[in-house]
């Protein structure tokens, strides 16, 4: 079982802090801090600054992203915001708008 799942149809407005994996299939507005992987599934929407170990974007993300490992924007995923991560992949069909800081 994934640690925390925000199911489709559910929306959270506020701060979400987690020690475990977070999957967003619904909506989250506010801030998202996780000490594990975060994934925004297709159909999921996050309007929040995200701090995590890794981030996978299949849905929509609006906000700045700070990640210690990697960010993957999948086909169909959309990310608007600045990304700070050591690794970043953007799949064909993904959209991205923002600055990238890869700690070079």
């Amino acid at each position, binding site marked *: 079982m994934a*640690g925390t799942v925000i*199911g489709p149809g559910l929306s959270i407005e*506020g*701060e*979400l802090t*987690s020690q475990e994996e977070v999957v967003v299939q619904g909506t989250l507005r506010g801030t998202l801090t996780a000490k594990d992987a975060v994934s925004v599934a297709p159909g999921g929407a996050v309007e929040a600054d995200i701090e995590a170990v890794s981030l996978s974007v299949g849905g929509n993300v609006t906000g700045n992203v700070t990640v210690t490992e990697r960010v993957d924007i999948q086909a169909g995923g959309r990310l608007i915001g600045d990304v700070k991560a050591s690794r970043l992949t953007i799949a064909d069909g993904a959209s991205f708008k923002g600055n990238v800081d890869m700690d070079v």
Partner: protein
Amino acid sequence: MAEGSVIGQGTAVRGNVRGEGSIEIYGRVEGDVQVTGDVTLGENASVRGDIAGARITIAGTVAGELRGSEAIVLESTAQTAGDLTAPRIAIEEGARARGMLRMEEPGGAPASRASEQRRPAPRPVEAPRRVEAPRASAMEAPRAAPPPPRPEPLAQKKAPPAPVVPAFRGLHGRKKKIRARS
């Protein structure tokens, strides 16, 4: 997994959680939870805020009002401080609840007139204070009890040696000295 939501054990939410579907909470939520489906609160989970859902099953701690359109079930480990409203309410032995119980539809069925006259507004925020109050007084009571016995025996012992013997000796001494000089 696709239809439900889970707030895991290591997760804390500060804010409101709303929407469709069911939710299982094993972490902490500070804010209201309002879903169309069922709400399950795990044993070590806590919610500070109101909960609304279809069938609400509580094994953890809630400080806030509960409104179930189908039922509310308080399991033996549950602790709630706030009013409970649902057509069916079950409270297992061991569960601790504080607040008013209304066995009716949360929307406000005819039976709600009488109960609303008695207490018009829900007060979920004040409820936790009331829970703490009896514990504090119970702790103070034994401490306050011992002091009374002390004063009584002390007063009795001090009373007898009151006679003023040294003053009498002093008079003798002075008289002798005066006689010797004259």
